[in-house]
Each structure stands twice: as C-alpha cells, then as structure tokens.
C-alpha cells in the first residue's frame, strides 16, 4: 500500500464482505482492523477481499507433528478446531504422516495458541527434537503408535479370550468355575474397557464436542452400555428379579469389540508407517560428501559445506553432489533417476548437471550453482512433503455410517424408554431403563471391526497374486473412485529403454547386413543403444559374431573388426570426424530426430553402410491396457516432457486422446493438482524420481515396479511387473473390495438392526420376550461369520 487511495480501496473491499461491520486501514502501519460477525464470515474471506482489492496479507505458516490421528474424522476435528481460531487462514491435516500445516495471521494468533487448540480436541503435539530430521521424528512417532497399539491388542486379546470363555459356559464346559463368576469377569473387563479402550472415550468426546459421531462414538456408547449394564447386574442381581428378564452379563461383548477394532487399527498403523520412507529414500540419493577444488587442491568436504561458486570435481562412477554448470571435462551422465530417461546425457563445458545423477566415465569439473535446499533433488523432496501435507484423506465408510447410526440408535433407545414408561407393565421405571440399555447394547455392531480389515486383507492378497502391491487399506478404498488415469510416458507406457525402430541401408547393403555388422561391433557393449542393436539382430535371427579389436569411443560410438572388416557405429559427429559421406541418410536422420528418434550411423571399411533409428517404444500391452481403462469409463491422459509431435505419435499408438506434452520436471504435480481442482479423482502412474511429487499429489499414486525405489515409496500401489494392464486390474480390485466392504458393513449392522425392535420390546406383548443373551450373541456371531465369509468370497473374484 502506497497511498491513501489504496487504503480506502482495501477498506471498501473489506466492507463489501457480508458480516463486516467496520473496517479501518492504517496506511502507516499497514494494518487493517476489522470488526465482523464470526457467524457470517471468517478470516479467510477477509483475506480474499484484501487480495481481490489487489493487495496481499502477510501470512505465516507453521508445521506441527501431531500424534493420535487415526481416522478421517480426526482430521476434520482438528481442522475445524483450528479454523475456529480467529486468525487461522488455512489448516490442513495429513492423516498419513500426522502432520498439520497451518497458515495464520501472525498478529492475530501464535503457534502456542494453535498448539493449545489441537490439544483441546484430544491430540498431542510433538516438539521436534533438536537436530532431528523431520522424517526421523515422523517415523519415531509412527513406530511408537504401532508399538502401543500392538501392546494394547496383545493384553486386550488375552483378557478378552478369558472373558469370552468365562461368559460362554455352554460352549466351554471345561472352564473353571471361578472364571464364570460375574465379579471376576467384571474385574477382567474393566481394564479392557477403560485402559485399553480408553482412546475410544477420548475420541468420542472430542467428536461430540464438534457435533459429530463417528466409529469411536459408536464403540464408546455401545460398549459402555454393555459394560455398565453388566456391572449393574453383577452388583444388584435382585434388580432384575421382578421383571423375569434373564440375568446375564455382556462383558464379553464389550471386550471383544474393543480388541477387534484396535486390531484393525494396528494393521492400519503398520501400513501407514511406510509413507515417510519416500522422503528417506530421496534423501539417500544425496551423496554425503563432495570433492571441491580449493586453493588448487581437491578436498573432500561434507556436501552441506559446498557453497555456490565452488568448483566441484566428479570422478567416473560418482554421484554429482549439487546442481551446477560444467566448466571442464567431458562425460555422459546417467540422469535416469531424476528424469526417467534411460539414455545417458552427454555433458561438456557449459552444460548443466543435476545433483544425485551419476557420472558415467569422464572426469567432470563443474561450478556449483545451487546448493542445499535449492537443488533439484531438494525441490523434489519439498514437493513430496508438501503434497503429503495437503492430501485430503478419504472419509472411511464406517465413519460415515456411524455419523447417522449413532443419533438414530440413541433416539430409538429414548423412544423405547418413553414407550415402556408410558405403556409398560410395572415396575415401569425398571423396565424402561432395562430396555433403554438393551437397545444400546444390541445396536453395538461387533462385526464392524472386521468389516473393513478382512476385505482389505483379502483384497491385498488377491492383488499380490497379480503383482499388485497395495500399501494400505486406504489406497485400496480410494482406487475405486478414480475417474482419470494419468500416465507418465517414459518407462510406464513405453519400455523406458531404446529399441531399434528403423533400419535404412545405404546403396549396396541390405537391411540384414547393416544390422549384422552393427550388432557384431556392439556385441559386449554396455551402452543401452548398443544393447538395443544386439537385441534387434538376435530377434531377426542374426547371431552377432564376437568382434575383434573392440574399442569404445566414449560418447561417440564404437569401432571393431567384424568378419575381418572394420566397422564403425556411432553418432553423426563420429562419422563426420572420420570424413565419411552418408549422403541422403543424413537428411533422413534429421527427419527421424523430429520424431524423437536417435540415429546410429554404420560404416564398413570406411564406406557408409546404413543408418539405424532407435527410440523408446511402446510396451506391448499398453494399447490393451488403455482400451480396458477406457472401457471401465476412465479418462486416460498421457504426460511427458517430450515435444508435442513425439508425444502424440506415442499417444496415438497407445490409443490415448489427451496428451499433456512439454511438461517441465517439476510441473507434473501441478498438472495433477489442476486435474484434481476440476473435481476429478486422479490416479497417477509413473516410475521416476521426478514423478514422486505427482504420485503423492494424486488421489492414487501407482508406481511401476521396474522404476526407482523413490517412486515406489511415494506411491499407494506398486505394479511389480511393470505391465500397464495392472492399472485397470488395481482399479477393478479396488471396486470389488469396496463393494465387499459395503456388503460387510450391511451384514455388520443388519442383525443388530433387526435386534433393535426385539430389544425395544416389540415382542413382549405377544411372547414375553425381551433382549435375551441368546439374541445378542447370535447377532454377534451371525454378523461376524457373514462378514468374514463375504470377505473370503473376494478371493474368487476374477480381475
């Protein structure tokens, strides 16, 4: 703001926001003071108004590590709590990593208040220990969460088994009598209910304060009803004597469900612990030390101490330490880990090199241009972290159902109470109270804890059979909703390595001769182009002879004697050097280059023999994979850094209509973000390190198993075989799994819902039947059996 006019423009903009009563802008201090009705507007819309007026607002950001985020509703709870704080502009919780990213107005709120807000809804905020890498802190917390859950499941399981056999003397007649004692059962159930299952109460209370009910609420309410009712029966057995209701306790119901749900959470926690490994893998690519020229001598120093302008030396086989520009030396550099491009790139003075890439054969000296957090690798790490931080988790089906089920059950229980009190037999209050509790007990769906994990486990096993590795249950649940599949071209749709596409013989030579000579010379070559030529010759039935006098002309080509004749295979520069005339083939090489093909010139005994064109070719299964995805109603998009013409040629071959070409290495995540902003559910398929941010940004990241470790760590699903048909199989598997989960949830609730009228006493007037322990345990057993067998059915699915 530079003038009074600006100030009044901001004021006007602010006053136009509905709910703003007063807005004053102080030009000298650059501060706007706004009086507004929080019910009508929030800080976010005020900032938007300032921005619309053409000015910006200073916003600070903070990242916090939070423990105990276990479900989508926790995310919503924390976000709501934070956004309720005046001054918080944006709050985003990452379910997978437990990280909370907050944008706030530094003069309205501070980090301490933000911390308190998170703690007030029942979560713990962690300090990052001094000097500890964020990824390590994350991993430490994840591991602790897993260990705690495992201990809870073990102890809870032990107690639950004792309670279960003690409660079912009919099934387990060998159980010692003391275990059947109600007081003993009560003593065993109490630690399960409050110590081991205490987290359900804390989460349920936090949800309640935010006017929601989730699975935790359901578990807390249901198990409490069973527990307290049973405790009352144990203490006052005569209470029920007058009603004729069977005296029984439900400690087993409460304990079993607590342990089952915790078991499901434990499995999830283990899967979640792997998310941050993408970052660890990326960091592992960074060399620890660099060789720099200082005072005329080579000195090895920690990579963090390299400063911009340092002359850095890279020996053959070493990793480039930081980003820079070559000043001396010549070599090829393997950049495949960053770009996914399999061909090494020739580097000489003036060319750029990127940190983490591998120098193949020559000594290079380069001037450091970007160090520390500015390097391309650091940027990729940052993009991955950011994408992880903003990814909205899916809301689990079970939570969505619980949000409605809980108020409905409580209503049913209250109405039951009223009905028995108004119309029931004496003693009215006792009957009313009993049946109120009975409704709550029967409504507690024991198989709920099994519904998702069993289906997910069977689904994952099914996927593994087909070479589809699924990282977590959440990934499997997300994949069914995908409507757009984005393929990175190189290594995903294409082989990711060059193949001979054209053989153009010079006059006097045949196709087979050219191929045989070239392959003979290249036999034993380690260069990807040489290997491609040998492969092609072998495929054509020409067994290449072992050459004599093989000599690799680094970066240019090879020279060898084949069948007693001197053969030269290499670039245009090589044959130009040798003074060979290839005539019209040079022009054809130019045309091939436009199609994205690389040319290898072949000369025999100092005469032009022909030209081989090499390019990264489409995988054999790519067209059918794309066709299958289209048939499933998904839109398929191809993403590549290539120019439009090359890209479109490949896309046509694969049957893809939409191509995004010339994408810069850092731009892939942006393309995915754009598609998601259109409201699409995007799956990204890629294999390179530069795909990692896009893989994390996408709703579903699918990595090709033949690619880099980083891509696999960043993804939700890995296709081991590298076959693009795995994508449609994964989506199909997910659709089936989600269908199974839905059916499971139906079965988990069905018997209980049927039991509710019985518990409410609908049958009492006719049969004098009230909630009977038989009915409660039958509901529990039937729903568990239905759920498990329904999940197992998934094994027979054809995908």
């Amino acid at each position, binding site marked *: 703001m530079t003038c009074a006019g600006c100030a009044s423009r901001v004021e006007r903009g602010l006053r136009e926001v509905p709910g703003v009563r007063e807005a004053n802008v102080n030009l000298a201090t650059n501060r706007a003071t706004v009086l507004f009705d929080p019910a009508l507007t*929030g800080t976010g819309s005020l900032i938007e108004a300032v921005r619309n007026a053409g000015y910006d607002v200073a916003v600070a950001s903070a990242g916090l590590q939070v423990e105990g985020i276990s479900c989508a509703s926790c995310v919503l709870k924390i976000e*709501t709590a934070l956004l309720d704080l005046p001054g918080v502009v944006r709050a985003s919780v990452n379910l997978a990593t437990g990280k909370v990213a907050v944008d706030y107005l530094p003069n309205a709120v501070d980090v301490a208040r933000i911390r308190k807000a998170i703690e007030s809804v029942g979560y713990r905020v962690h300090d990052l220990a001094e000097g500890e890498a964020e990824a390590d802190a994350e991993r430490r917390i994840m591991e602790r969460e897993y260990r705690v859950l495992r201990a809870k499941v073990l102890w809870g399981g032990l107690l639950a088994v004792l309670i279960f056999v003690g409660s079912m003397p009919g099934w387990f007649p060998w159980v010692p009598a003391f275990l059947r004692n109600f007081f003993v059962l009560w003593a065993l159930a109490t630690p399960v209910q409050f110590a081991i299952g205490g987290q359900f109460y804390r989460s349920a209370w936090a949800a309640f304060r935010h006017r929601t009910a989730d699975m935790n609420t359901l578990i807390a309410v249901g198990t409490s009803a069973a527990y307290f009712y049973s405790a009352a029966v144990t203490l006052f057995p005569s209470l029920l004597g007058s009603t004729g209701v069977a005296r029984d306790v439900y400690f087993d119901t409460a304990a079993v469900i607590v342990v089952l749900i915790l078991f499901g959470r434990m499995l999830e926690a283990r899967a979640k612990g792997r998310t941050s490994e993408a970052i660890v893998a990326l960091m592992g690519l960074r060399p620890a030390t660099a060789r720099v020229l200082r005072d005329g001598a080579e000195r090895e120093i920690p990579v963090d101490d390299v400063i911009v302008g340092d002359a850095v030396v890279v020996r053959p086989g070493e990793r480039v330490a930081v980003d820079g520009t070559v000043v001396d030396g010549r070599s090829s550099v393997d950049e495949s880990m960053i770009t996914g491009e399999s061909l090494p790139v020739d580097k000489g003075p003036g060319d750029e090199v990127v940190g983490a890439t591998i120098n193949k054969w020559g000594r290079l000296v380069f001037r450091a241009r970007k160090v520390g957090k500015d390097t391309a690798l650091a940027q990729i790490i940052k993009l991955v972290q950011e994408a992880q931080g903003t990814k909205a988790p899916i809301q689990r089906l079970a939570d969505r159902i619980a*949000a*409605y089920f809980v*108020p409905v059950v409580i*209503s049913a229980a209250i109405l039951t109470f009223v009905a028995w*009190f108004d119309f029931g037999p004496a003693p009215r209050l006792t009957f009313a109270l009993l049946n109120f509790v009975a409704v709550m007990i029967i409504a507690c769906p024991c198989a709920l804890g099994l519904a998702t994990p069993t289906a997910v486990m069977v689904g994952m096993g099914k996927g593994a059979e087909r070479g589809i590795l699924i990282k977590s249950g959440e990934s499997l649940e997300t994949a069914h909703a995908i409507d757009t599949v984005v393929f990175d071209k190189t290594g995903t749709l294409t082989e990711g390595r060059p193949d001979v596409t054209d053989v153009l013989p010079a006059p006097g030579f045949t196709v087979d001769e050219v191929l045989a000579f070239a392959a003979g010379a290249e036999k034993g070559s380690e260069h990807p182009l040489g290997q491609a030529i040998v492969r092609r010759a072998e495929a054509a039935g020409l067994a290449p002879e072992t050459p004599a006098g093989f000599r690799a002309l680094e970066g240019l080509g090879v020279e060898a004697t084949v069948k007693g004749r001197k053969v030269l295979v290499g670039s245009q520069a090589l044959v130009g050097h040798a003074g060979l005339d290839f005539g019209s083939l040079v022009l054809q090489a130019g045309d091939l280059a436009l199609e994205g093909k690389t040319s290898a010139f072949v000369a025999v005994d100092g005469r032009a023999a022909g030209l081989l064109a090499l390019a990264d070719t489409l995988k054999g299964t790519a067209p059918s994979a794309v066709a299958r995805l289209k048939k499933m109603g998904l839109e398929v998009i191809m993403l590549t850094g290539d120019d439009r013409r090359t890209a479109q040629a490949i896309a046509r071959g694969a049957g893809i209509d939409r191509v995004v070409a010339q994408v810069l290495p850092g731009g892939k995540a942006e393309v995915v973000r754009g598609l998601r902003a259109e409201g699409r559910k995007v799956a990204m398929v890629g294999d390179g390190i530069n795909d990692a941010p896009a893989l994390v940004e996408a709703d579903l990241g699918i990595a090709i198993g033949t690619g880099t470790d980083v891509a696999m760590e960043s993804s939700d699903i890995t296709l081991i075989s590298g076959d693009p048909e795995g994508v449609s199989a994964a989506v199909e598997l997910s659709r089936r799994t989600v269908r199974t989960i839905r059916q499971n949830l139906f079965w988990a609730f069905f018997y209980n819902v049927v039991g509710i009228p019985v518990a409410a006493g609908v049958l009492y007037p006719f049969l004098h039947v009230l909630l009977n322990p038989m009915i409660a345990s039958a509901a529990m057993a039937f729903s568990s059996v239905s759920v498990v067998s329904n999940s197992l059915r998934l094994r027979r699915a054809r995908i």
Partner: protein
Amino acid sequence: MAAKIIVTAVGLLLVVAVNAYFLGPRRRKAPRQ
C-alpha cells in the same frame, strides 16, 4: 399421569435435540482440498 407427560415431553425433546445436534446444519465446515 403427570409423570408420563413429563417423561414423554422430555423424551421427545431429547430425540429432537440429539438429532439436531448431530445431524443439524453446520455453522462452518473446514475447507477440503
């Protein structure tokens, strides 16, 4: 009789309250990414 009327009224009120509390319109929702 009076007790029945009170229990009925309180019960119905509770049912309405529970449903309004859990399922009623939200004041403000966290923005989703």
